[in-house]
């Protein structure tokens, strides 16, 4: 798989990935009159054929996650999965308690859900990780109360790549009678997971981060007698009424195929990503004032977040073209607010503004990394020369 857009050097795989050509082929075969286009809920041969693709996809995704296919609910993506998991669980258990726990460094698709629940009368404890982004288990234990119903901790942080020890976090939650939800949008298909062995109750994921299509995700719901979710959508009996709506079979089949490929490639992917990330860091780590945001020892190797002093993020982003990377600021015309994730790790506004997230993917080459090193060094040098703070 190579970058089709030859004028771009794409290093933003944490934002999204291209669809694997094999996945695309699977999806295309299901479209049109010659394909298995039937409604998978229909009681006829066309429906049954479609349903078989859904079953295969669930088996493939279940195998990747180390769980059974019947524990998966199809959604439109990780954002919907997060909403269904957090709101669905919190509302169902509200008669038992209204205290919830999450981290300041979660994705907006989680933090905004908790804020919505706060407006419904739930009380939320917002945990701050250490300066390296890792949550201290003692911090979590101290926040847990008798009325804590749900804890939501992401597996791999989307900005820093830092991963949390969800096995120990799950044990801590279960010891106190709380459910654990994990936003795993950045880790499913990238890091080994064995859900059957983990004390994880709910896990959100999406296909487009693992070379599958956009618009399809899933929520893992563990089999526990006290685990029930209130649905957010109404209108049909699909998926045990938890998430009604006609299933998008081509997208689901694509997700399943992408999961199967990820299972096959994961170890070689990880080795390749680690080599490239280390090469990238070695190529820029000697720049004066550079800072690694996160912890290489506890990070997914496809992601490197760095910031430099005296460089403004939006200008750095433009100076880096044709590199496609992400900046540490919200960075649009209306909002120049620095990344709240990096601010929570203790970075100053200026350092967070100048942060760049390089995210490496399966198609990334060594030449692209070398180009990124040269481009980054040049851009930093040019912008620093221009900065009143450096040369005054």
């Amino acid at each position, binding site marked *: 798989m190579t970058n089709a857009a030859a004028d771009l050097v794409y290093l933003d795989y944490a934002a999204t990935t291209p669809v694997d050509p094999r996945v695309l082929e699977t999806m295309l075969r299901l479209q049109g009159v010659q394909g298995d286009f039937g409604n998978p809920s229909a009681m006829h041969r066309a429906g049954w054929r479609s349903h078989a693709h859904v079953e295969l996809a669930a088996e493939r995704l279940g195998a990747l996650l180390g769980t059974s296919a019947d524990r998966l609910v199809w959604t439109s993506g990780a954002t919907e999965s997060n909403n269904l998991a957090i709101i669905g669980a919190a509302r169902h258990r509200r008669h038992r308690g209204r205290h919830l726990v999450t981290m300041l460094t979660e994705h907006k698709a989680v933090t905004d859900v908790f804020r919505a629940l706060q407006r419904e009368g739930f009380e939320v404890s917002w945990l701050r990780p250490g300066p390296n982004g890792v949550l201290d288990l003692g911090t979590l234990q101290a926040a847990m109360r008798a009325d804590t119903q749900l804890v939501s901790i992401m597996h791999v942080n989307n900005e820093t790549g830092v991963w949390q020890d969800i096995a120990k976090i799950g044990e801590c939650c279960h010891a106190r009678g709380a459910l654990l939800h994990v936003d795993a949008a950045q880790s499913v298909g990238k890091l080994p997971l064995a859900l059957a062995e983990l004390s994880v109750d709910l896990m959100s994921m999406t296909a487009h981060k693992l070379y599958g299509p956009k618009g399809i995700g899933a929520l893992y719901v563990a089999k526990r007698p006290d685990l029930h979710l209130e649905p957010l959508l109404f209108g049909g009996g699909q998926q045990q009424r938890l998430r009604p709506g006609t299933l998008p079979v081509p997208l689901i089949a694509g997700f399943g195929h992408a999961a199967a490929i990820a299972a096959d490639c994961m170890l070689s992917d990880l080795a390749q990503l680690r080599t490239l990330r280390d090469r990238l860091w070695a190529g820029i780590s000697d720049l004066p004032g550079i800072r690694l945001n996160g912890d290489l020892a506890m990070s997914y190797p496809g992601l490197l977040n760095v910031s430099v002093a005296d460089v403004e993020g939006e200008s750095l982003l*433009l100076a880096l073209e044709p590199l496609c990377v992400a900046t540490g600021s919200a960075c*649009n015309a209306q909002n120049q607010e620095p990344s709240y994730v990096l601010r929570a790790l203790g970075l100053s506004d200026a350092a967070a503004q100048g942060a760049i997230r390089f995210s490496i993917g399966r198609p990334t080459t060594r030449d692209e990394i070398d180009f990124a090193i040269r481009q980054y060094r040049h851009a930093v040098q040019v912008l620093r020369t221009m900065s*009143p703070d450096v040369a*005054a």
Partner: protein
Amino acid sequence: MSRDPYSERVRALFASPLHAGSMSTPYRVLVDDQGIRIELSATLDGDVIQRLRFRAWGCPHVVAAAEWICTQLEGESAARLQDFAITELMQSLAVPVEKSGRILVVEDAVRALGAAIKVSSTIAGQAEQD
């Protein structure tokens, strides 16, 4: 590229900031506001701005605006600086209206430079009379 926030002019000026730099001159100001920092330094030939240089910490629109100003004002009378307005600049660079606050910081820097030059000239004039 319909969502590209930068006009061709902004991209060109940002890519080639020929007036980026600083000079050792009495006519130098630094304005720091709204997270933007602009330094302007000038040399004069009589009342005429001979050379104008900038340094900036800001978004690409700010950098492009500073470069545009230096290009426009070199060779002009220093008296123009004090009533400089960003209207033409905003149009020429197609700056989004949301960023006008930042561009006003650039305007402040130009006017501050004009004021600094006027004060220096007044003091020099008084010294000559004394």
